[in-house]
């Protein structure tokens, strides 16, 4: 399995999360317990001392001292952690055989102190207290001590337990995480198996949404819409090839037929002249189709408009209208330009798109009517819309009008130079500028236009 495996990565992340959680909780727990444990020896010492304090203080006779001695011995035997030392000038009133080290310590300040005895790994917690002389008894230094070894050991074993628990927990979390991830990823595996079945030409199938967890909805929806586009492109490509063949076939048929007829018998020079001229017209038509197709192909391959200049679109429209002036006059159609905006354009390309848009509008406008060209600055883009009054276009045709060779009436009337690529070229030019095309048909007017990034 590759290191990219989602299950492996998830289990790794589970382990990390577990590590973090155990560390935090363990650390807090340890601190809390440590604080508690640190107070325990002092509490113990205090408790022991308070029991003995009055007995020691009250009496000063040797008889009593012997009793106290016995009691102290008993206590230290009962609980091995406890130690008592009594230091004074008179050896009779002493306890615990204090050596020089203890004596030196006992002379130190009163109160709770730590005593490190040689030969002992852990310090004693010692309460040093003082009793004034009473009767025969000289003043005493009374040392109540408790060995902290057990506390330290408890703390140590707590730490060990915490660490080993955390380790086991982390291992468990990652193993369980891996297992859970595998189960959770099952729908994905199923999905990829299903997607594998959808290859051309079996593109009509779609991934089913209902059986899938909602998290995959978006992915499946976009996958399906990609499939939609691929299928559309695929079928468009097929029909495009058929259209190309058709468009090329009719001029070729004319060329071959006419030439054959002319050659079947001797003809006058005028007749040959006539045939050659007609052939030339057909050939020019072929050339123009091929050139347009090459232009579209280069746009398809992602060729971009490179020689961009910032230009006033109203001026470009005006130049185009100047070019189309005679055509407009012949068609008795007027054009009104509204608005202006600046955009970076490749002027020759844009001019071509404008000519095609306007020419398309003129062809569908009756004499005496008005065409509007609206130029708008829409912030992030500019739009040029060419609007002409005309019969409404059915909604099903609208998205396809910019496709190659698309004609609303299926009977393809092959009208001279107009070979059905004009609007496709407009779209290609928009794409080359990083823009889009749009078409609307409403309230008896039809609008074709392009949006260009500003």
């Amino acid at each position, binding site marked *: 399995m590759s290191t990219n495996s989602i299950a492996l990565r998830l289990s790794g992340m589970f382990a990390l999360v577990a590590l973090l959680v155990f560390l935090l909780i363990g650390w807090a727990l340890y601190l809390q317990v440590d604080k508690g444990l640190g107070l325990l020896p002092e509490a113990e010492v205090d408790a022991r001392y308070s029991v003995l304090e009055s007995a020691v203080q009250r009496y000063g006779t040797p008889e009593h001292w012997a009793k106290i001695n016995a009691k102290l011995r008993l206590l230290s035997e009962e609980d091995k952690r406890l130690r008592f030392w009594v230091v004074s000038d008179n050896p009779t009133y002493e306890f615990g055989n204090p050596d020089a080290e203890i004596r030196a310590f006992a002379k130190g300040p009163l109160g709770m102190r730590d005593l490190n005895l040689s030969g002992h790994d852990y310090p004693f917690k010692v309460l040093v207290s003082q009793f004034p002389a009473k009767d025969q008894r000289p003043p005493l230094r009374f040392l109540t001590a408790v060995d902290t070894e057990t506390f330290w050991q408890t703390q140590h074993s707590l730490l060990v337990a915490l660490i080993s628990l955390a380790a086991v927990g982390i291992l468990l979390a990652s193993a369980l995480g891996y297992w859970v991830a595998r189960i959770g990823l099952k729908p994905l595996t199923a999905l990829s198996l299903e997607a594998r079945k959808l290859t051309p030409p079996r593109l009509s199938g779609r991934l089913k949404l209902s059986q899938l967890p909602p998290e995959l909805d978006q992915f499946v929806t976009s996958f399906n819409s990609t499939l939609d586009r691929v299928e559309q492109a695929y079928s468009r490509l097929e029909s495009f090839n058929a259209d190309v063949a058709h468009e090329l076939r009719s001029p070729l048929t004319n060329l071959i037929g006419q030439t054959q007829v002319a050659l079947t018998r001797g003809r006058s020079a005028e007749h040959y002249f006539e045939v*050659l*001229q*007609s*052939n*030339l*017209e057909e*050939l*020019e038509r*072929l*050339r*123009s189709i*091929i*050139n*347009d197709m*090459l232009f579209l192909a*280069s746009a398809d391959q992602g*060729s971009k408009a*490179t020689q961009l200049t910032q230009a006033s679109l109203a001026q470009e429209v005006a130049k185009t209208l*100047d*070019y*189309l*002036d*005679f*055509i407009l006059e*012949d068609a008795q159609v007027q054009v009104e330009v509204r608005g202006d905006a600046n955009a970076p354009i490749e002027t*020759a390309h844009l*001019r*071509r798109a404008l*000519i*095609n848009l306007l*020419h*398309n509008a003129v062809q569908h406008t009756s004499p005496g009517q008005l065409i509007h060209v609206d130029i708008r600055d829409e912030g992030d883009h500019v739009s040029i819309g060419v609007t002409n009054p005309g019969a409404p276009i059915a909604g099903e045709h609208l998205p396809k009008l910019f496709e190659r060779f698309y004609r609303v009436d299926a009977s393809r009337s092959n009208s*001279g*130079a*107009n*070979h059905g690529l*004009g609007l496709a070229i407009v779209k290609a030019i928009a794409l080359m500028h990083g823009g889009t095309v749009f078409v609307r048909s409403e309230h008896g007017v039809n609008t074709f236009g392009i949006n260009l990034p500003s």
Partner: protein
Amino acid sequence: MRVLIIEDEEKTADYLHRGLTEQGYTTDVAREGIEGLHMALESEYAVIILDVMLPGLDGYGVLRALRARKQTPVIMLTARENVDDRIRGLREGADDYLGKPFSFLELVARLQALTRRSGGHEPVQISVADLWIDLISRKATRAGLRLDLTAKEFSLLSVLARRQGEILSKTSIAEMVWDVNFDSDANVVEVAIKRLRAKLDGPFEQKLLHTIRGMGYVLESRRVD
């Protein structure tokens, strides 16, 4: 004027040879790159027409080797019309560039542009039969009668008159009059010619503006047979 055609495609080479000879050029043909380069280096040519796809040494190779020694103007021909090819050709020192399929008239126009003598003065007045054109005052008369032309019609007439006797394709007319150098669905040139013809030839016996079907238009005085 001597022209060298380096082209391996037989039909293309043949019609270029015939067509250019008829246009008054002396033409030599080479069928492959190394032979063409040899001829280009050995003889003096006014222009070389060079195909890109050639056996032996390709068009770019010929151009590079030629430019190392000579500055003869070169028009490159290619079937692959993409921008990279064009840029490469021009960078290697080609003077002009035509993508196949190209029109023969276009090629002749480019040839003339490359060989036109510099320093020649543009005429200020042109006459064709009884037509007089004054390019400075932008007035035209026929048989002494003022022709009422719009600015565009006058531009069209002067473009045709400057090249009288020469067939101009619709594409080159569109380029010279409107600066539009691509095919468009709109038959603007046809409509413009029709209007010009109505004013120029309509009221007169002798017709000056002729249509050459499939090729273009020519302004010339033809003797009535």
